C-alpha cells in the first residue's frame, strides 16, 4: 500500500546518518499545495535553529502534484523521505505510516499549510523534557466571532465529558516522543484528536502557545454540522478507550436500566389488570413497556458478545507495553 522513495544512497551522505536522527518531521499532504517548497524551507530553518540532525517524512498520494517538487528538493540534497500511497486513505493513516518510519527520538507532525510560526519548533521540542506530547495552541488566533464561539463550545464539551483541558485540540503543530507516536493507532478522523487520544491513554500532554504564521490565510468558519460531527468523534474515542476491554460495563448499564424500567412498568400494568380491573386492551403502554424489556435484553446480549470477543482474543490484545526489563 505504501512505498518509500528514498534517495540513491550512493549520491547522498545523509543516509548514513539516518540511524541517529534527532527529530523526524512527518508532514501529510492531503490536498493541493502549491507552496510546499516555501513551507519546507520555513520548517527547515526552524529545525536547523533547534537541533543538529533531522529528517522530513512527507506522506502523500502518488498522483499528488507536490510529489515532483519534493523529489526535486530531495535530489538537491534535502533530508527528505517520501512515503506515497497509491490512494489517499486519510490523514490518520498517513500519520501512522510516517510514525512507523520515523527514525528520530522526537517525532513532529507539521501541517502542510502555513498555520503556525515555524521558528517555535525548538520551543515545542524542548517542552518534551517534561511531558510526552507537546501540542501547539494558536494564540493570538484571528477568527470571526462565530468561529471562536463554536470553538469555545466544542472545547467546553471536551473538557466536561472527556476531561481534556485543551484549548486548541485540532492544531496540527505537535511534537511526540517516538515511543508515544508508535503506540498511537489512528484511523478515520482521529488525527484531529491525537492529543485527546494520547491523554486518555495515560500520556502527559502539554499545550504550548504559538503565534500563527505570518503567511496564514484567514480560514473560513466551519459549519455547525462539522462541530456536531466532532462531538460524535470525541464520544467514540472516549468509549473506545474506557470500555474497549470491558464492553458489558457500558452496554450492561444501558441495557439493564432499560430492562429494569421495562419490567417494573410491565409488572405495574399487570397488577393493575389483576387487582384494579383495568383491561389490558386499553393500555397501549403495555407494548411500550415490553418493548423496553426487549431492547434491554438485546443491548445486554450485544455487550455479552463483545465480552466473548475480548475473552477469546485476549492473548492477542495485549493491554500493556513493557518499557524495559532491568536485570
Amino acid at each position, binding site marked *: 500500500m505504501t512505498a518509500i522513495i528514498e534517495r540513491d544512497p550512493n549520491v547522498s551522505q545523509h543516509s548514513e546518518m539516518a540511524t541517529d536522527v534527532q527529530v523526524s518531521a512527518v508532514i501529510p499532504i492531503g490536498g493541493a499545495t502549491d507552496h510546499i517548497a516555501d513551507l519546507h524551507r520555513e520548517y527547515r530553518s526552524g529545525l536547523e535553529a533547534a537541533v543538529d540532525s533531522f529528517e522530513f517524512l512527507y506522506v502523500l498520494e502518488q498522483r499528488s502534484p507536490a510529489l515532483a517538487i519534493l523529489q526535486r528538493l530531495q535530489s538537491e540534497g534535502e533530508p527528505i523521505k517520501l512515503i506515497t500511497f497509491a490512494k489517499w486513505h486519510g490523514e490518520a493513516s498517513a500519520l501512522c505510516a510516517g510514525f512507523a518510519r520515523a527514525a528520530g527520538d522526537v517525532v513532529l507532525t507539521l501541517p502542510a499549510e502555513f498555520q503556525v510560526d515555524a521558528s517555535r519548533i525548538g520551543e515545542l521540542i524542548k517542552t518534551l523534557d517534561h511531558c510526552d506530547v507537546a501540542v501547539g495552541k494558536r494564540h493570538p488566533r484571528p477568527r470571526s466571532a462565530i468561529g471562536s464561539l463554536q470553538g469555545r463550545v466544542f472545547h467546553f464539551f471536551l473538557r466536561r465529558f472527556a476531561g481534556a483541558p485543551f484549548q486548541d485540540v485540532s492544531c496540527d503543530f505537535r511534537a511526540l516522543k517516538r515511543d508515544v507516536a508508535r503506540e498511537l493507532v489512528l484511523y478515520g478522523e482521529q488525527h484531529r484528536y491525537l492529543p485527546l487520544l494520547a491523554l486518555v491513554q495515560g500520556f502527559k500532554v502539554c499545550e504550548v502557545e504559538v503565534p500563527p504564521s505570518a503567511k496564514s490565510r484567514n480560514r473560513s468558519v466551519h459549519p455547525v454540522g462539522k462541530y456536531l460531527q466532532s462531538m460524535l468523534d470525541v464520544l467514540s474515542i472516549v468509549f473506545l478507550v474506557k470500555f474497549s476491554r470491558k464492553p458489558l460495563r457500558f452496554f450492561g448499564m444501558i441495557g439493564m436500566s432499560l430492562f429494569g424500567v421495562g419490567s417494573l412498568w410491565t409488572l405495574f400494568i399487570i397488577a393493575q389488570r389483576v387487582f384494579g380491573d383495568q383491561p389490558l386492551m386499553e393500555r397501549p403502554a403495555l407494548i411500550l413497556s*415490553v418493548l423496553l424489556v426487549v431492547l434491554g435484553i438485546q443491548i445486554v446480549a450485544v455487550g455479552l458478545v463483545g*465480552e466473548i470477543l475480548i475473552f477469546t482474543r485476549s492473548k492477542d490484545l495485549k*493491554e500493556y507495553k513493557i518499557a524495559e*526489563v532491568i*536485570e
Partner: protein
Amino acid sequence: MIEAERRQPELSIVVPMYNEEDNVAPLCERLLTSLTPLGLDYEIVLVDDGSADNTLRNLRAQQQRNPEIRVVRLRRNYGQTPAMAAGIEVARGRTIVLMDGDLQNDPADIPRFLEKMEEGYDIVVGWRQRRQDYLFRRKIPSWIANRLLARITGVNVKDTGCSLKSFRAELIKGLPLYSEMHRFIPVVASMAGARMAQIPVSHHARQFGQSKYGLSRIYKVAIDLIVLRTLISLAGRPFGTLGWVALFAAFLSIGGFIYGVGVATTGDAMSSVTFAGLSVLLAALAMFLFFLGLLVELLYGADELRIENLASLTVRQINPKTPPA
C-alpha cells in the same frame, strides 16, 4: 554459566507495584529473607506500573544490590491486572507466585505454597486469616462477593480478594488475563479443570501508602460476574444457551399470537391488537437472539481459545521422566 542457570529458575515471584515507594525496601528484604533459606533457584519480578512517585528509583536501587531481582518498567499506568500479566509474561520460573506490593501479604507464607504445589496442585490460593481491614468498607462487601461468586460460578473460592497465589507457569501463562480479571483467575483456572488447593495465610494491616480500592468496584465486580457466568455457560454449547432464551421468547410470542387471534374471533378487536403487538415484539427478540447465538458459535468456533483448549493447559504427563542417558 550463571546465565544458563537463570534461564529456567524454579520459582518466580511476581509483584505489581503502583505508587509503593515506602514498601519497596521492606518488601524486598522480607522476600529475600524468606526465600534464601529455601536454597532453590528463584527470581523476583517487580513490575512498576507507571508509578508517579519514587517507586521506580527504589526498585532500581534494590535491583542493583540483589541479582535475583528483575524490574519490569511499564510505559505508563495500566492497572493491576495488566501489570500482573506483564510480570507473568516476563517471569521464567516453573512455578509463579503472585502477590501484592503493599506488604499485606507475608512472604513467609510462600514456602507453604511451594509445599502444596509439590503435592501436585496446579494452583494454590491464599485465604486471609484475621483480616486487618475496615469492616464495612472492605470486609463485608468482600464476604458477600465471595458467597455470590461461589454460587454463580460453582467454584468455591474462600477469599477471592487475597492476592497471594501460586501457579504452574504453563497454566497461568495460558489463561486470559485482562481488564480486572485477576480476581477471577482461580475461577477461570477451575473452568479449565485445574487442581486447586486453598491454604490459610497471615494478613497485615497496610503500613505505608494508600489503598487503591473503594466501594465503586461493586458494580464492576457484579458485571464481571455476569460475564464470567455467561462465558462459562456459553463455552460448552455457545448456540445452545442463547438458543434456549430465543426458544422461550418464541414460545411466549406464539402464545400471545394464538391468544390474540382467539380473542379477535370472540369480537374483542382492541385486546387482540395489544396481544398481536406483544407477540410481534417477542418474535423480534427471539429472532435477534437466534442469530446472535449463531454469531457466538462463530466466535468460539473460529477461535483457538475454546474450553477444550483451556483444558489442555492442565494436561500433565504422569509417566516418570526418562532417566538421563
